């Protein structure tokens, strides 16, 4: 047996988990075409609402939902593509989403 000591086991498991998590993350971005993902993130949204998604290669796409056809909205990127570290990626998406949504809400409240 090559792996004998417990600390080494923990390190091994941690490294393996990180690798697995990274693989899963990438697979999510690659398992369907980008158009599907862009449509998916706008499914429950209205026109002009903020949206973002992982465009693959840890590219974060940030934009707003716009009509692509009579009924379908897609996420239109309007910010430069951002490179995101994979482990921080999901946290950043969540944080950005909250920030953009609250900005939208503030605008809407002001206009009222």
């Amino acid at each position, binding site marked *: 047996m090559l792996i004998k000591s417990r600390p080494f086991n923990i390190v091994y498991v941690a490294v393996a988990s990180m690798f697995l998590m990274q693989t899963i993350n990438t697979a999510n*971005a*690659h*398992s369907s*075409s*980008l*158009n*599907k*993902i*862009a449509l998916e993130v706008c499914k429950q949204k209205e026109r*002009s609402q903020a949206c973002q998604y992982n*465009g*693959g*290669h840890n*590219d974060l*796409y940030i*934009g*707003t939902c*716009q*009509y*692509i*056809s*009579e009924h379908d909205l*897609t996420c*239109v*990127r*309007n*910010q*430069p*593509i951002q490179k995101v570290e994979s482990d921080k990626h999901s946290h950043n998406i969540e944080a950005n989403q909250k920030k953009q949504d609250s900005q939208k809400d503030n605008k809407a409240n002001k206009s009222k």
Partner: protein
Amino acid sequence: MQLLNRINKGLLLCTSVLTLVVLQGCENAPKLDDSQLNAGKANIQAGLDISLFKDGAFILPPKIVDCETTARTKTTCYELKTSGAPAMREPGPFCPRNTSDGADVGGAWFDKSGSGDLIDITGEFIVNLSRYYDDPNWMLYDPKTNKIRYTDTKASCLGAAKPDVEEQYKQNCIECLMSYLDDDFSRTYLIPTTPIKAEEAQRVRTVGIALDGAELSGSAPVDAILGSYTIAAFDDCGGHINVHQGYHYHSTTGCTDTVTTDDGHAPLVGYAPDGYGIYAMEDALGKEESLDECRGSTDEVRGYHYHAASPSENMIIGCISGETVRSADEHAGPPPGADGRPPRDGRPPKAGKPPRD
């Protein structure tokens, strides 16, 4: 050592003198007064500049006609009539013929990551489609002969390049030729001579007209195309042909880029149907700016204008900010033809196996 010290002292002296000169120069630089600033604004490139189009972009001399926008604003428009072909070049190539063909024989397609440049459609790409899309049903070539299946007749182009791809044309690389178009085929664009900002942005139907006269088209329905196990191949310029639109672009790869100013701004690609210019994504330094929701921006030289997205994003701009005039031959919604529309039931085909031939 002494020599080095002398050089250092000399450099220090030179730098100091240079700094003083520059500072003095800045202080003496003429400041623009309000009238000069306003004069600058008067030079804003408002609206379409016919002289920037390539020779042969139009089949009739452009003319100015009265028109009414969809918001019922009466104005004047440029009437631009094109042949549906890009000026000064032959479209293609699109589909490779053999699995050993390289990038020079085939065209290009969206990178599935959706970012960056288009990817080359090589013979190898066709062979590896199953792996690329993680779907074992892909089979666009005959493994016995290594020949790639592509739409090599007008009938097959029509059969494959339509909303509900006929069963026999699934599993094909789709390419159509300009010769399949009707003899009297033409496209007419009505574009306001002076752009009028709309109260509310409209959705993209036609993105606009490129500087070579070809249409800049809306997003291709990629899921429907791939769902029929077809690739609606582009040429390296990011466009392809169907019998309804002629040659049209789904992405901009630099083929119509025209530098219009010397300020390092991105080059002009074409014009949107509201008359605002569409510029390439990045400026001369390769930088991209933050844009509004239509992918638009305003500066003092160009006024309001758009920036195209990257070639593999399957969109050129996000919405239309200005008022537009519906041309007689404008399509509502995603174009038919080589783009293919989703099957009527909206689902991909159940059996994606290659035809038996």
